[in-house]
């Protein structure tokens, strides 16, 4: 009497469940497809030279050299941008949680941050360009760093905020009960508890910063050299990829794929690394 009969609703259920699993597989498959494509096309041209040399004369016509200028340039840009963003993000995130909590003003600030996060990076790039012109700054590492910090700020604050909000309230209460001021609670207790999450947030923002082209397109310029000062223009990996792919020479295009592979590897290292670090550091946190 309770045996399964093939009622219509069971058939529909099975069908829908199948659709769902297929959808999931498609999405997961895309990741595999992307990584595979980049790997297969980029690996052949990934030579030691590519990673250790800057473009020699005629690099874009097929002659020798590598993309070290872009690799270092990207690291400088993202590193500087992340550092600059961090200086502002940490206070904002701490203030949000410690003083504002769920208040009205806190919601406005969070709304603004979400809106900032949604502004396309090309708009930030254009904005940065205008400011640059206005103050007479030329395309440079510094300009790129400033614009990237604008791009990374909302990501970093949101990620930190998310982590800080999950903090067990008792911890804060316990500290306050012992007589700490709110500032002390923030600095001593919140930061330590949140350390793994904060590091994850920093790495997340760094990863986004290193991969973005539209914001540095106008502001960091491009050069075949490794910048030796903040005022010089700098190359970046995304743009290196873009320019190499834009040439009609297959050899150069291949190198473009290799550069894309390098960028992907860097991002993967950051992503996996942040996961490992947070797992390691989570030992010390209160659950």
């Amino acid at each position, binding site marked *: 009497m309770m045996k399964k009969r093939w009622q219509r*609703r069971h058939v*529909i*259920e099975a069908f829908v469940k199948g659709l*769902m699993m*297929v*959808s*999931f597989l*498609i*999405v*997961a498959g*895309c*990741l595999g*497809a*992307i990584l595979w*494509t*980049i790997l297969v*096309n980029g690996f052949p041209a990934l030579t030691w030279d590519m990673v250790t040399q800057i473009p020699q004369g005629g690099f874009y016509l097929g002659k020798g050299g590598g993309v070290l200028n872009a690799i270092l340039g990207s690291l400088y840009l993202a590193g500087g941008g992340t550092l600059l963003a961090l200086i*502002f993000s940490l206070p*904002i995130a701490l*203030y*949000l949680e410690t*003083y504002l909590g*769920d208040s009205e003003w806190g919601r406005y*600030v969070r*709304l*603004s*941050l*979400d*809106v*900032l996060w*949604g*502004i*396309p990076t*090309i*708009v930030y790039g*254009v*904005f940065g360009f*205008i400011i640059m012109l206005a103050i007479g700054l030329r395309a440079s590492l510094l300009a790129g760093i400033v614009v990237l910090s*604008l791009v990374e700020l909302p990501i970093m*604050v*949101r990620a930190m905020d*998310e982590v800080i909000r999950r903090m067990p309230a008792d911890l804060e209460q316990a500290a306050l009960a012992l007589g700490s*001021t*709110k*500032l002390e609670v923030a600095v001593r207790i919140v930061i330590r508890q949140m350390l793994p999450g904060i590091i994850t947030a920093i790495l997340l923002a760094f*990863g986004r910063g*290193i*991969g973005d*082209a*539209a914001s540095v397109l*106008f502001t960091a310029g491009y050069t075949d050299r490794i910048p030796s000062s903040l005022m010089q223009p700098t190359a970046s*990996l995304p743009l290196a*990829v*873009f320019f190499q792919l834009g040439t009609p020479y297959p050899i150069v295009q291949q190198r473009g794929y290799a550069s*894309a592979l390098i*960028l*992907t590897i860097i*991002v993967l290292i950051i*992503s996996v690394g942040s*996961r490992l670090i947070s797992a390691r550091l989570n030992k010390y946190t209160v659950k």
Partner: protein
Amino acid sequence: MNRQIQLDINNTNLGAEGRRSRPSVVARNRQNQFARRTFFIVTLLPMVLIATVTIILVVRSWPILIAYSPKDLFLGSTWRPDNGLFGFWPYIVGTFWVTIAGVLLAVPPCLFTALYLSEYSHSFTRSIAKPILDLLAAIPPVVYGVWGLLAIVPFVEDVLAPLSKRWFSFIPIFAVTQPTGFSIIAGGIVLAVMIAPLIISVVYEILRTVPEELRHASLAVGATQWQTIRQVVIPRVIPGMVAAIVLAASRALGETMAVLMVVGNVAQVPKSIFDAGYPLPALIANNYGDMMSIPLYDAALLCAALILLIVILIFNILSTLVLQRMLGKNWA
């Protein structure tokens, strides 16, 4: 009362090490107030930033906004800056087409995936889904562009277009009139994969806000899971789903690099998804070099940026308001 106790502790701290200097309560409170004021100013930063960006874009695109009528600017189809002709229409339509294509392609599989992860899957599946989605979200746009160039454009050229030509050429929107795979649909496919992690994670969070008891109430009378989802869970979260889609659309609107590499960059009003297009972000990115040499060119490009910004701001604010309200403390 507290203060009294504090000071006593202060005094009794004399030990073998001698008097330890501890900051008094008064000093610590002053520290607190100072920090509080500084931090407050810092939280103004986000709003100030939004205002500044908007205002500057308006100011710098003002010259072109007063030089031409809105009709000429936004509905005009000719873009010849050296002749002083700035017609945004093809670019606006191109942006629109590619974004709609991306959203339409992404929404069904992403909704199903989110439903699967929320309602059916084991915790094991969820634990591998999270890294997958995080990785997809972390891949830089230019890498998506390379993938698009290497995999999607050929796919459109060699598989989709011939298929459409054979079976669907009577439908204008699927007409194939150019031989390459650089097209709106290629841009749409790449965009769809780029916005997928966002849609999936937001919809998943929304689904998690429906209390488990509601599902149990439905299951207890013998409903199947899908019946429960369809009749109890989904109706409650429709506003949130819409907001998630709008949010994803706003991200698709602004994506520059990846789309630029696959969409063809031909300034025409597309008539079919297999036509090439030229979205606004690509317009800005491709021409910034010529900006300063031709009068009003810079204002024109900034005007393009302004259009993008305004639309995205509207979408973003509306959807975020809805989602903040639905997800409350869980809004990530």
